């Protein structure tokens, strides 16, 4: 029931927020905040209360699950389940959910009720994606995410919002339909082979398939996750959608929705289609590296601050793709940590860009400059998250990217070298952003207010989380490790490419068990 509550609380709160309407804006904000905080504490309760199950990895594959009949005629069940991997991402969802409510506290003043309803519903969809282990339910949640996010962009977005929203919707819907066909092909093949028609994740693992069929079906899944992550060259919706969305929308898009793509790769693509994924790994890893370099390169040349941050996502999430398809313990742990830390640091950067825009009504780097003098605390925060983004040791992003490269190095050295060059590029764009916006003389004579207490709270929490994850990443590894081990155990071979990873290729958290 706990898992149902995770979904039901934000969904119902969304209805309440909508019902409260625009006149009782304060009440709407508090209801929304309460719902997201409640979800956060439920997640925390699972984390703490089931600490032993989470860490020891008992025989039962899930920490908690809910399994009820839904559409028995087609073998569809309402099956939610949580393991360490889902738990980590759900905690991230709740954390960034709180932040996105707080950061729109003064930004959104019109149609407050419907805005918060959409925030809550998109979070419901995302949590549903992380919990669903029936493939029909998963696809259902996957599609449910779209509509509220579309509304967030098209109603509260910036200048080019209609174009961006429709592009976002069509890209994700088209790729989603390809995944639907793939899911159904898998369902039919499994049914033909075993006689039981089911969408159950655990049952569909190890479905016998011909190599060609496996490759095609895997590509259907790959398409959906590649658009979401995004993988070069399917990323073109991302800069538009991120730039035009309101701040909270960008935070959720970058911080959470992109993670559903990474989650899909880890949970579905490789375990369901190990042989095809093995053969496809070189291509995927090359695409990952291209994404890393391309995203960083394009980010460097942006003049719109928000677009710049959007392109850095393309770069950072290239590491996730690289890590997943390297498929060893180190790289996978790195990919998960990278997802979490990218969510926090990029979410924070979008919040900062939103704060600048609220004060200056522009995102144009050319019109900025010398802001440090005008707002030292805001600028200091920007510097901090820019450094996190470029991979400063001691902060979470560094650990994630480092582990991915360490894991990839065992598999393919050349790609690792190119990925490392991507980190160098990150230094360029991050420092250029800081220089152009914050340093120099305040030629445009900006006078803007500095951080307000609410913003202190948001950014303080995010700073603390990043430092904590940078210094003590085991807290994540301990929870996600057993889940990843189990997922890896499904796949008949480790180290998806040339040499098998040495058996001691364990991260500290994993080895200490």
């Amino acid at each position, binding site marked *: 029931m706990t898992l149902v509550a995770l979904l039901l609380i934000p969904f119902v709160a969304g209805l309440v927020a909508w019902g409260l309407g625009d006149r009782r804006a304060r009440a709407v904000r508090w209801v929304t905040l309460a719902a997201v905080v409640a979800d956060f504490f439920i997640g925390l309760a699972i984390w703490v209360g089931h600490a032993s199950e989470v860490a020891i990895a008992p025989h039962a594959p899930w920490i908690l699950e809910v399994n009820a009949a839904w559409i028995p*005629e087609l073998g569809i069940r309402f099956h939610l389940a949580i393991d360490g991997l889902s738990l980590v991402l759900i905690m991230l969802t709740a954390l960034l959910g709180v932040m996105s409510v707080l950061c729109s506290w003064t930004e959104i003043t019109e149609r407050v009720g419907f805005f918060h309803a959409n925030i809550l519903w998109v979070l419901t969809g995302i949590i549903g994606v992380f919990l669903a282990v029936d493939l029909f339910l998963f696809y259902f949640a996957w599609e449910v995410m779209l509509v509220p996010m579309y509304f967030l962009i098209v109603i509260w977005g910036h200048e080019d919002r209609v174009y961006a929203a429709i592009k976002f919707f*069509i890209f994700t819907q088209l790729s989603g339909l*390809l995944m639907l*066909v793939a899911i*159904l092909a898998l369902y*039919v093949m499994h049914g033909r082979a075993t006689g039981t028609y089911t969408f159950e994740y655990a049952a569909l693992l190890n479905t016998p398939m011909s190599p060609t069929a496996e490759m095609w079906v895997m590509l259907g899944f790959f398409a959906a996750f590649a658009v979401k992550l995004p993988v070069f060259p399917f990323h073109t919706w991302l800069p538009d959608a991120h730039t035009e969305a309101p701040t909270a929308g960008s935070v959720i898009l970058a911080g959470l929705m992109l993670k559903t793509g990474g989650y899909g790769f880890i949970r579905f693509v490789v375990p369901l289609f190990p042989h095809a994924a093995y053969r496809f790994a070189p291509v995927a890893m090359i695409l990952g590296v291209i994404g890393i370099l391309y995203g960083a390169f394009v980010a460097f040349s942006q003049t719109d601050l928000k677009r710049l941050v959007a392109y850095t996502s393309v770069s950072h999430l290239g590491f996730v793709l690289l890590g997943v398809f390297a498929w060893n313990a180190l790289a996978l742990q790195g990919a998960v940590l990278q997802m979490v830390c990218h969510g926090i640091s990029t979410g924070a950067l979008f919040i900062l860009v939103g704060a600048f825009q609220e004060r200056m009504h522009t995102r144009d780097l050319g019109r900025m400059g010398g802001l440090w003098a005008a707002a030292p605390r805001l600028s200091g925060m920007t510097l901090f998250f820019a450094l996190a983004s470029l991979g400063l040791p001691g902060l979470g992003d560094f650990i994630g990217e480092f582990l991915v490269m360490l894991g990839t190095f065992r598999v393919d050295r050349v790609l690792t070298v190119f990925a490392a060059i991507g980190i160098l590029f990150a230094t360029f764009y991050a420092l250029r952003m800081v220089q152009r916006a914050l340093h120099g003389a305040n030629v445009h004579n900006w006078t803007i207010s500095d951080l307000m207490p609410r913003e202190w709270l948001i950014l303080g929490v995010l700073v603390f989380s990043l430092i904590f994850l940078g210094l003590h990443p085991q807290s994540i590894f301990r929870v996600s490790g057993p889940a990843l081990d189990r997922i890896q155990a499904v796949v008949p071979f480790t180290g998806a490419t040339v040499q098998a990873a040495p058996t001691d290729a364990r991260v500290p958290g994993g080895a200490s068990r």
Partner: protein
Amino acid sequence: MITAADLIPLAPSILVSLTAIAVMIAIAIRRSHFAAALICAIGLGLSLLAIWAVLPYVPRQVTPLIIVDDFGLYYSALIIGATLAVVLLSYPYFARLPDPPEELYILLPTAAFGGVAIVLSSHFASFFLGLEVLSVALYGLIAYTVGREASIEAGLKYLVLAASSAAALVFGMALIYARLGTMEFARMPALLTTRADFYDPLLLAGVALMITGIGFKLAVVPFHMWTPDVYEGAPAPITAFVATVSKGALFGLLLRYFRESPSSGGSVFLVFTIIAAASMIAGNVLALLQNNVKRILAYSSIAHLGYLLVAFQAGGMLGARAATFYLTAYIVTTLGAFGVVAVLSDGSRDADRIEDYRGLFWRRPALAGVMAIMLFSLAGIPLTAGFFGKFYVVTAGASSAIWMLLLVLVVTSAVGLYYYLRIVVALFATDDLAAAPAASVLRPLHAGSGIVLTALTGILFWLGVYPAPLIEVIQKIFVGLL
């Protein structure tokens, strides 16, 4: 020879025709719009109840012409239910028009009777009779608003094209009869024994001509030319009727008698594959070019018939069920979308410009919400019937491995999303809220329309979230049939 026992299964259809007569008599006594609509609604409601009541007495072959079985009754229920919804939507709509509205309530049950006759027919004669009853009533319905030029034009266009397609259909029947010597659908498969029979020129020509006639009513490519003009010209509730009842009836017949498994690889299968792909492509692409909401929905309905044909092509138990589910979802959704158009229309013209919907959500959240939900259902977004329908269709397609059609379906649905979203964008637009809204936007909702739209929205969510009960029903109706 019809016995009393034969009459019981026919009770629903008899009640529908009695409704038309009762309205006619009522009008002769006194012209009252309200009384005519009320009698019509009660009559249709009673026939719906009758369908439920005669369930224990079926299946039953009544003369060689009519077969009443679960399948036929399910489709009859769809037709009569949709007609009832159209009646309730028509009452406030036609009350605002200058024309005398009462005869509408004779034509609607007459057309519904034609539709019911088609889905219950087991013989060329009853099929053709039903088709003509439906068509003739539709000529009057489409051109009902004689004050509007577009309506007359649409009526004439439909008259000419429907008459010629009916001629093709009759000629096709004649050719088949000449070759097989029977007009009973059920006896035909037995007469086609050898493989050569499937390539008999006379027979193929007959089937091709019949497909032409049926394809016209279904408005699938290349027989779709009339659709946008008729949809645009006809009064909104009647457009809903054309889009749902007339197509639903013909599709029911198609599903019952024209199913062919993909493995046979016959030429009919190939023809339907081409028609399905062409309908999906043309419908979705041409809708992109439209600026008129009714025309957009017209092209979208062409595309949706294409999706239906994918399920039809998938064949087998799964394909037939998926097609029936999809048709049900399509009827509910289309009625809802045109229902909102009808509610927003006024005496002079229909609310068919996208501008009519700009910012509607901020003025009439419930009405715009219903429209948005209907559009999302047409686009196949979760929580709606359209989503599960599309899922079911793809399931059927995947199990029959018709990958090319599925690919076309996937790509064209993504294209189609664009024009649905255009209307949704307008519904939620915030830019011109300062301007005074049109009077039709502020008019309170009539109780009849309110009930229909609420019910349709409810059904839409029910089918989208918990479709298991309906799937169970649909499973039952195919038990004796395949």
